[in-house]
């Protein structure tokens, strides 16, 4: 156990000493990795925030049922009865064309427009809150209502949210692809860096191998180097991410104020940060492992 610990502290000490000696190169490596990773990280945070925003708006989908202009009171009442009886309808609210007209005339902003109109152009309308929340079921309900006699248009108010959701799905897929590509890039970057280090220490590796070093003895410092690069790169990515979100929030605060909203991008959760760092460490470890094993296989006892 003590022997095992000795081997590890020795390897780690060696790596840290070398990194201190090449401090600039090491820091540059951290930054390269951090910048690479902060790109998908930032996108992730933005999509995640939009997702949350869309989620909070989706709670109350509504179908606006506009009746035909020539529909009379009895048709409207019949539709009201049918809505009462419909199992998928939780609530509905009737706004007659006169009420709507009055509201428009009272509203200072639209009064000017309405004043120029000779007669009421508005139809009677029902605002239907469905019992169900599944998007496709609501759509089916909308299609059904559209077929009813006297209905001009059944409009699903959530359609823009659906479009946003579809976009967010696309965004998530995009991030996934980006993460995969940059992950591969990261493995290659680390692999190449470690390969160069192996080249500069080729003599040491050869001699060590000749006098009885095991593969794991030789591999160990390089794996530690890879892991430290991953740790540093992940932390830089995390810091960059927080910096970027804060920067965005400065502008978003101004924008939100114009919409009388206190909306802010939420900073990513701590778990996300730990995930980023852990993922980077894992990828770097993998990159170094591949690089060292390639070199070792060329030196093996045949």
């Amino acid at each position: 156990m003590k022997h095992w610990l000795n081997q590890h502290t020795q390897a780690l000490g060696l790596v840290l000493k070398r990194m201190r000696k090449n401090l600039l190169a090491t820091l540059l490596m951290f930054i390269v990795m951090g910048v690479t990773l902060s790109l998908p990280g930032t996108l992730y945070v933005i999509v995640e925030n939009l997702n949350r925003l869309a989620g909070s708006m989706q709670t109350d989908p509504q179908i606006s049922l506009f009746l035909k202009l020539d529909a009379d009171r009895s048709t409207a009442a019949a539709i009201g009865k049918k809505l009462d009886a419909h199992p998928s309808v939780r609530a509905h609210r009737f706004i007659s064309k006169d009420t709507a007209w009055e509201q428009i005339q009272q509203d200072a902003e639209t009064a000017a427009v309405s004043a120029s109109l000779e007669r009421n152009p508005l139809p009677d309308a029902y605002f239907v809150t469905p019992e169900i929340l599944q998007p496709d079921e609501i759509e089916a309900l909308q299609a059904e209502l559209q077929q009813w006699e006297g209905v001009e248009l059944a409009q699903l108010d959530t359609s823009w949210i659906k479009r946003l959701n579809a976009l967010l799905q696309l965004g998530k897929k995009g991030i996934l692809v980006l993460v995969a590509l940059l992950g591969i890039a990261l493995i290659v970057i680390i692999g190449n860096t470690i390969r160069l280090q192996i080249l500069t220490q080729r003599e040491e590796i050869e001699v060590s191998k000749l006098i009885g070093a095991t593969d794991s003895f030789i591999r160990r410092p390089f794996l530690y180097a890879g892991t430290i690069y991953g740790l540093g790169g992940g932390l830089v990515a995390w810091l960059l991410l927080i910096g970027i979100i804060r920067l965005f929030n400065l502008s978003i605060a101004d924008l939100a104020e114009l919409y009388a909203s206190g909306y802010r991008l939420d900073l990513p959760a701590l778990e996300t940060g730990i995930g980023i760092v852990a993922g980077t460490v894992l990828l770097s470890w993998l990159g170094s492992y591949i690089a060292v094993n390639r070199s070792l296989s060329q030196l093996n006892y045949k």
Partner: protein
Amino acid sequence: MIKFDQVNKRYPGSHQALQNISFEIEAGELVYVTGHSGAGKSTLLKLIAALERPTSGTVLINNQNISHLRSALVPYLRRKFGLVFQDHKLLYDRNCFDNVALPLHINGITGSEAGKRVRAALDKVGLLDKEKAMPITLSGGEQQRLAIARAVVSRPAILIADEPTGNLDATYAAEIMQLFHAFQQVGVTVIIATHDVREIKPHAKVLKLDHGHLTTLRGDQRTQETAA
């Protein structure tokens, strides 16, 4: 201790480096491997030190057949040997102390225990005052002595040297040979490849190679009979 039985070694795409080699080395012997350059001296040493696998035949080290040794166990076998190479194979990015400490680190020995043993080894080869010096500042003879210190620091039972005096003038060469003899006298098996027959001590065993064949053996009647 070391036994070769009808050992052949052929490098891929090359000539037969060693053909049908059989001999035996007892513990504590002083053995010279001689022959012209390209006769297979280095190959023979590499087979003993488990740096190469024989193409056919058996190589026994302490009754262990290393021809079939699993690759993962090879490093542990190599630690039983102290190796001195013709080109020293010193690491020029670290000082003398760290060079000698390398085998100990590989064995997981660090700290004051390692320091004691490194200094003892440096003392044996007369370089104790040079422990902080970088190898590049040493003379050829001193570098070779440093390499010997590295070879003996983990107190191996077998010391193998490939042309240890190849690049040295006569005075330095004699010093180095003196060192090897001293180790043999305290019970270490010493195997030295050399093309310079003047160095050979009369009581030593000699394996003479010629184009991959073992031609003469001196000092071991039994093996000589089987070879003939």
